[in-house]
């Protein structure tokens, strides 16, 4: 009887307080558990892939570490959940991860109907095609009738269908959920073409191909793919933190602050630098964080340029291109931190 009372009472209490029990903002949950849970790509060298010691590394991984540095003061307080393209949104919606830092394209549908909010762009990309060199194909317009390997649940899959429809060409898709399986099927000759974002093509060609020189990336870029971190809709505080963590690493590059010189630049007379590094208080408090939030990011992870150099340039040989800062001819334009 006592057990029964407890059961009924429990159900009533749970029902009454159901609203309150789940309404805690993400940042509180992150502080309470002591780490940031990030959803990352299962394996995309340059963006997120485990190294030989099993440590995650890459541009997207660095972004996750930046958020941990800003919120918890320690860039190592992260945990990574590798997600396929088809798993990622459910993982975020259901609260399995705090933030999705997994080369995800910012689109209208995702921003609205999928219940996500995008916190900026950390890589401007576009979709391309890769084929075997010995097929002698020079342009995507020659691809009619081809078999195309693509990851399901991506914008890539939709753009692919759009592109072939728009150009009155036919194609046969082979959709394999796991990116590694899909790229292996391509290298085994199951497909004539592999399509994904150009950075992904470069990554797979460089790191997975039996011989990178046997494959070419066709010149056509058929879409815009602004890739950025996403959070759940309805938690503005957390959205701000993620957005401004990304901005801080861009701002640091613009101001010439690196992990090496950040300590000495604390003495800088530039008021912008002083605000960013928390020498002048206010910015951290506005985000509900420690004043050293940006200092921690720069000191522990480095600015955006350092991260790009370390991960994308060195590993994949991709130069900055449109991912350069705005004052160097690129699209990266950090909003003012003031």
């Amino acid at each position, binding site marked *: 009887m006592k057990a*029964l009372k407890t*059961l*009924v009472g429990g*159900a*009533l209490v*749970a*029902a009454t307080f*159901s*609203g309150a029990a*789940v309404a805690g903002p993400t940042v509180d949950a992150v502080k309470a558990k002591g780490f940031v849970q990030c959803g990352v790509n299962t394996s995309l060298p340059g963006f997120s892939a485990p190294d030989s010691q099993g440590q995650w590394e890459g541009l997207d991984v660095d972004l996750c570490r930046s958020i941990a540095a800003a919120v918890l003061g320690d860039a190592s307080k992260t945990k990574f959940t590798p997600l396929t*393209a*088809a798993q990622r*949104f*459910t993982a975020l*919606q259901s609260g399995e991860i705090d933030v999705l830092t997994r080369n995800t394209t910012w689109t209208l*549908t*995702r921003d*609205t*109907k*999928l*219940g996500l909010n995008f916190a900026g762009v950390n890589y401007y990309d576009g979709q391309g095609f890769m084929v075997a060199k010995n097929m002698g194909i020079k342009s995507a317009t020659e691809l*009619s*009738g*081809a*078999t195309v390997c693509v990851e*399901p*649940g991506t914008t890539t*899959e*939709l753009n*692919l*269908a*759009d592109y*072939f*429809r728009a150009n009155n060409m036919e*194609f*046969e*898709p*082979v*959709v*394999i*959920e*796991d990116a590694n*399986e*899909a790229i*292996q*099927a391509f290298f*085994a*000759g*199951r497909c*004539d073409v592999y399509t994904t974002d150009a950075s992904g093509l470069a990554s797979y060609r460089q790191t997975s191909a039996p011989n990178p020189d046997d494959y070419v990336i066709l010149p056509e870029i058929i879409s815009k793919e602004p890739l950025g971190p996403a959070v*759940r*809709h*309805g938690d503005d505080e957390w959205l701000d933190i993620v957005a401004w963590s990304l901005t801080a690493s861009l701002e640091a590059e613009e101001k010439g602050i690196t992990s090496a010189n950040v300590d000495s630049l604390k003495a800088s007379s530039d008021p912008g630098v002083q605000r960013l590094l928390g020498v002048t208080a206010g910015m951290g408090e506005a985000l509900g964080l420690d004043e050293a939030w940006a200092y921690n990011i720069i000191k522990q992870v480095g600015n955006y340029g350092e991260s790009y150099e370390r991960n994308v340039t060195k590993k994949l040989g991709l130069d900055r291109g449109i991912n350069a800062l705005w004052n160097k001819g690129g699209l990266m334009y950090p909003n003012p931190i003031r």
Partner: protein
Amino acid sequence: MSRLTPPLPRSDANKRPWFLQLFYEEKTRAIIYQILVTGALILLGWYLVSNTLDNLARQNIATGYGFLSLEASFGISESMIAYSPADTYGRALMVGILNTIKVSIVGILLATLIGTLVGIARLSPNWLLRQFSGAYINTFRNVPLLLQLFFWYALINTSLPKPRQALNPFGDTFITNRGIYTAIPEYHVAYWWMLAAALLGMLGWWLLRRWAIRRQQATGQPFHHGIAGFCLTLLAVIAAYLLAGAPSAMDAPVLQGFNFKGGWNISTEFTALLLGLTIYTSTYIAEIVRSGIESVPKGQWEASNALGLRPGQILREIILPQALRVIIPPLTNQFLNLTKNSSLAVAVGYPDLVSISNTTMNQTGQAIEAIAIFMTIYLSLSLGISLFMNWYNNRMALVER
């Protein structure tokens, strides 16, 4: 308790208010408990549903099935009905359902066939055959299906040539790592006539069989209704073919650009999935068949031997009909497993129900709705199979006279 102790005064119980008295009655107490438990379940259900709706609303995720009529705009590699990216999500899901049903039916038929043969071979007096089927069962039953799928898929992809170097074993048949392509007859009305003739022939076969059985029961004279019926059906089909104009035009696959076009083809993904499902399930079916046969008392073999029946005849006429009663219930389970295991298709890129639902929920964000749809479909498929198998089981059950 000593008998000398005076009985407790009952006045206590009588002093209880009427509702407590009611509560201490066993019958009413049972009812009260049931109401409480049901109430708790309803509360729990209500809590889950309202919590889900709250969360969805807070995250600004729309609910409902409206998305089914939106344009899907993704491609699907193989489909039994016409499909293009301009069709709706509803149609895309239909393609997935049909693909699931297709691979399940073909898989069930093949797995039953192979499983029965291997199960019988397991009991064969031939040492080599017995050991070989034992090894087959133990190997494929103990390796996880998912790994087997990866294995078959990788094997086909890497060991078979690309379309331009296609193997050409005979005629217009080509084997590539994209699939097997072969010529099929071009559409002609004659094929409908042949189908009609085949059905008619089978009806004749059935009547013949009934007559043969009745005759044997009456006179003891056997009649080879199997061979006669088969010849009858074949003759009818050939006659229909000749009378309808004997069409011979073939639709042959031709290498055009990247791939073979035309003809009939089985894709690599379908083949890999079918191989995996069939082989995996056939090992379980083999063990079910083996144990079914072993469950028939030895005396049945000895008695039939004594009657002078041939071994094949004993198996067919005496042993298997009795074994079936033991075999069918666990066999039903294997059919259900095969159907449900086909959802692993997503690993090898076969566009089954789960694969297409996953894509749909990812593109629309309607995770709960999409999962509800495919849970409903699998539930219906499973209940359908078990209804059919229960009907069959009842037919085969021991009729007690």
